[in-house]
């Protein structure tokens, strides 16, 4: 069955090729970083948990060594060929593949259709670029390597943060935060409990970088015992709007690196927090809206 294994083979091959090209260009820090990523994608399932932990430490050591260099600028040629159509190949493949692969659960892992479709789209787009633009996949990897170097070590930050979340869960950070928030609510106030729940979702999401980690905690501390059981709120809006209050927190935190930090690097912004600054004026009024809406529904 085609699943994550195929996706990791495609992504791992890209990282391995970046490592080889980086070494050829004597960009040793970048080459080592990409080689470690390739090892993770090819052999991650075979080197054990401690092995993976050591691999992470090696990645962090390379990232903090100061030996990773930015991508070198290149001048694009004047536009030729059906570039916009080719740019839509990957989105179209993601769309078509997601719908199509769901019909063949025996062939493609139903849980991974989107990632598989993306990987197929990448291979298809590279083949079409070769055919139509006469640009080889090796040129593609070279151009992709430059973009990856532009992102630099921030490329693995989302994955590291997700792993930190796992350690937080193991250590019981959520229960402690939930207890603190639960203890701060004035008795008998629906509005107070709603504010504590909505703000708690947003703040805990800011800390964890992920509303998914905040939801079970805040549901246990405030949402279920107070809003649903004590004040008789409908559990559907309590859950749904609470989660969306958490998403407002996601817009405000560098801990949600794949949404907020990686794009800043990818768009070559000088300000690492530029995307968060652009989001704050939407996120804060929307958080207020969510809290008021939930209060209106429960009261």
């Amino acid at each position, binding site marked *: 069955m085609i699943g*994550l294994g195929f*996706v*990791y083979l*495609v*992504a791992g091959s*890209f990282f391995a090729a970046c490592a080889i090209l980086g070494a050829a260009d004597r960009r040793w820090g970048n080459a080592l970083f990409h080689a470690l990523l390739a090892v*993770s994608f090819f052999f*991650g*399932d075979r080197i054990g*948990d401690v*092995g993976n*932990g*050591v691999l992470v430490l090696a990645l962090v050591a390379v*990232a*903090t060594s100061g030996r990773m260099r930015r991508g070198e600028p290149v001048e*694009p040629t004047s536009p030729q060929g059906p*570039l*916009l159509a080719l740019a839509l190949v990957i*989105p179209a493949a*993601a*769309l078509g593949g*997601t719908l199509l692969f769901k019909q063949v659960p025996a062939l493609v892992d139903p849980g991974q259709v*989107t990632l598989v479709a*993306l990987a197929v789209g990448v291979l298809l787009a590279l083949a079409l*670029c070769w055919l139509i633009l006469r640009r080889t996949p090796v040129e*593609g990897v*070279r*151009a992709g390597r430059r973009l990856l170097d532009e992102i630099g*070590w*921030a490329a*693995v*930050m989302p*994955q*590291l943060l997700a*792993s*930190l979340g*796992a350690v937080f869960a*193991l250590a019981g*950070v959520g229960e402690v935060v939930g207890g603190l928030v639960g203890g701060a609510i004035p008795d008998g106030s629906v509005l107070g409990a709603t504010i504590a729940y909505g703000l708690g979702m947003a703040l805990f999401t800011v800390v964890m970088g992920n509303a998914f980690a905040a*939801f079970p905690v805040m549901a246990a501390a405030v949402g*279920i015992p107070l809003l*649903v059981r004590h004040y008789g709120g409908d*559990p559907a809006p309590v*859950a*749904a709007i609470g*989660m969306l209050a958490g*998403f407002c927190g996601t*817009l405000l935190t560098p801990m949600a690196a*794949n949404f*907020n930090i990686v*794009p800043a690097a*990818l*768009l070559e*912004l000088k*300000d690492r927090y530029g*995307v968060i600054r652009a989001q704050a*004026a*939407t996120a804060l009024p*929307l958080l207020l*809206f969510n809290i008021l809406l939930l209060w209106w529904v429960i009261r």
Partner: protein
Amino acid sequence: MLVLSGVAVIALGFLLRFNPLLVIVVAALVTGLAAGLDPLAVLARFGHAFNETRYVTAIYMVLPVIGLLERSGLQARARSLVAGLKGLTVGRLLAGYLLFRQLSAALGLNAVAGHAQTVRPLVAPMAEAAAEGQGATDTERVRALAAATDNIGLFFGEDIFIAIGSILLMKGVLDGYGIHIEPFHLSVWAIPTAIAAFLIHGVRLWLLDRGLARARVRAGASR
């Protein structure tokens, strides 16, 4: 309370601008030690989670295609497309993209767009070209706003789709309390916030257009 020391490490580390990767690893170690775990167990847990979340990093496989198309002049082509459309302002362009992103995410099509797939190669250069046509000089802010618009559209569209991870997580958590709810009832409650998100962000984009127009009038008057 002691387990919160890891959170303090994160906050301080980010504030003092240490390398974030180093801050994250130290925070994990501090949290684990505070919870009474031995360092090797923390390392193993961290390594295990890192291996299980590789799919987050797999998205970079699109970069060879994006890089190749950019070298062939994709961004210039996207800009000339904007120049050919009269009356297309940066605010209208991004509001249109916001609506597209919300609607496609509401249908469960999250990966159709994204920072690597669409924002960097298409949306950001188009927004920059439109803003420059309106006399904008701070294109860095326009690029940041393009990325912000993608995030907002995704976050406040996807929860309308009944099979998305967050809906399934909510259902699972509520099940644990003996509260059984159909995913549909959860996704319906995402609609008011989706509309509010479009209106709030839409007003900001409209104000951006208006601000650019006023700056231009002022510049014209002072000349």
